[in-house]
């Protein structure tokens, strides 16, 4: 287990390689605390996998990064931006933050009343203020990026789950995010379709995208992630280099979890 760098935390100047820094995040639902004082850093270009049993607080933690989940306390640093739960961020602060962070959900959440291309165009036009033509071109490019250039006119309901998830990835990429969040992106897919999505994510990682991924896919975590963070009961139990953490976990709780998952 890494020593927690308490000394560094008081300094305001962060290391320029760090893109995202979560500091002492606490999250509660209905007075029940689900995340306890978690700190986490993601460097530019790094892929970090968050693993752990259900209810460990992985998704909650991920969702605080773009403030879909409001932490009860703690600070989020994203590049030069600092959002602190104590300082009550305005909606404008959150919008600015969210425009830099792409998010891919477990349930895809494509807009069902729009075609694939329109899904990818919508926020480019109505959030970033791009011209329609520019947005269309970019949307087409991103669909091609995820291997769906022929699917622009399709409605999400006429696409497979794997295709929908790739459209959702294209939709997030079109916003030029500095960081991509993935919240169990393959959990709603059967294994065969999950592979399509994992391959797309693999490609993104190779292209140098900074990614924070909540996943149950241990092979993917080991192969693609630079670093793995293991959480249980709302706390970070162990974190480290992906390969060594998954192959040689140090903490008994991590060992227990990985045994259980890999014995399946």
């Amino acid at each position, binding site marked *: 287990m890494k020593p927690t760098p308490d000394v560094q935390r008081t300094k305001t100047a962060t290391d320029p390689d760090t893109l995202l820094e979560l500091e002492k995040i606490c999250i509660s639902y209905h007075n029940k605390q689900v995340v306890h004082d978690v700190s986490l850093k993601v460097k530019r270009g790094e892929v970090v996998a968050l693993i752990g049993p259900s209810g460990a607080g992985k998704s909650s933690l991920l969702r605080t990064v*773009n403030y*879909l989940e409001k932490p009860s306390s703690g600070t989020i640093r994203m590049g030069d931006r600092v959002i602190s739960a104590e300082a009550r961020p305005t*909606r404008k602060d*959150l*919008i*600015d933050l*969210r*425009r830099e*962070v*792409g*998010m891919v*959900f477990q*349930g*895809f*959440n*494509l*807009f*069902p*009343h729009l075609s694939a291309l329109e899904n990818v165009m*919508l*926020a480019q036009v*109505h*959030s*970033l203020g791009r011209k329609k033509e520019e947005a269309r071109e970019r949307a087409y490019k991103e669909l091609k990026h995820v291997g769906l250039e022929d699917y622009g006119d399709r409605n*999400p*309901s*006429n*696409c*497979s*789950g794997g295709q*929908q998830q790739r459209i*959702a990835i294209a*939709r*997030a990429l079109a*916003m030029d995010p500095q960081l991509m969040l993935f919240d169990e992106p393959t959990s709603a897919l059967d294994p065969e379709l999950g592979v399509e999505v994992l391959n797309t994510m693999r490609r993104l990682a190779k292209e140098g995208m900074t990614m924070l991924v909540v996943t149950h896919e241990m092979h993917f975590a080991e192969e693609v992630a630079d670093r793995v963070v293991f959480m249980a009961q709302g706390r970070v139990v162990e974190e480290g280099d992906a390969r060594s953490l998954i192959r040689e976990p140090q903490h008994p709780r991590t060992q227990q979890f990985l045994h259980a998952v890999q014995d399946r």
Partner: protein
Amino acid sequence: MEVLQVVSAGIGTTLLITIGGFALGAIFAVPLLMLRRSAYRPVQWIAVAIVEVIRSVPPIVWLFVIYYIIGVDVIRLDTFQAAILGFGIISAAYISEIYRAAIEAVPRGQWEAADALGLERYSLYRRVILPQSLLLTIPPAATFFIGLLKDSAVASVIGAADVTFLSLQTARNSGEGLTVFIVAAAIYLVLSVPIAAIARGSAAFIERKLAIA
């Protein structure tokens, strides 16, 4: 045949009162909805109070209040205007609840996706939520419209010359009560059926349009 001719002269009035009341209600419902969805509890309570008061007073009482009290002492309203205003107020309460249910029926993931993409509140509603919820309002709104069509008969008590008013008059004059009211019932039925069909058809359309595999 003669009965049909006399009674069906009221169709125009029946339809105009219904459509006018509904349209007015659809407009009045918007500010009511905004109050109801306010972030501030006390503001929400105001909306709840308005809706509850409107819904718990019978339509006939509303029409009397508007026609005999407001319509005479405050601003002059003729029968027709009073009926449309009355049904507009009543409809506003029900339609605002239809709007609210439709907005709240849009899955949480849609709101989250729109938020995650950094959409401003206006774009979030205009581009993501309303296009989906507007479709969802069609079936309950059509059902409400049919109810209103029948409730509009109440306007006959303040003298609006609608289907019911003419039926009452004809029945009294001719003594052919049964025939007259069977004809009236048939007219209401014929007016309702197409709207019910729209409701049913739109429900199927919405299911296809908003379905995700």
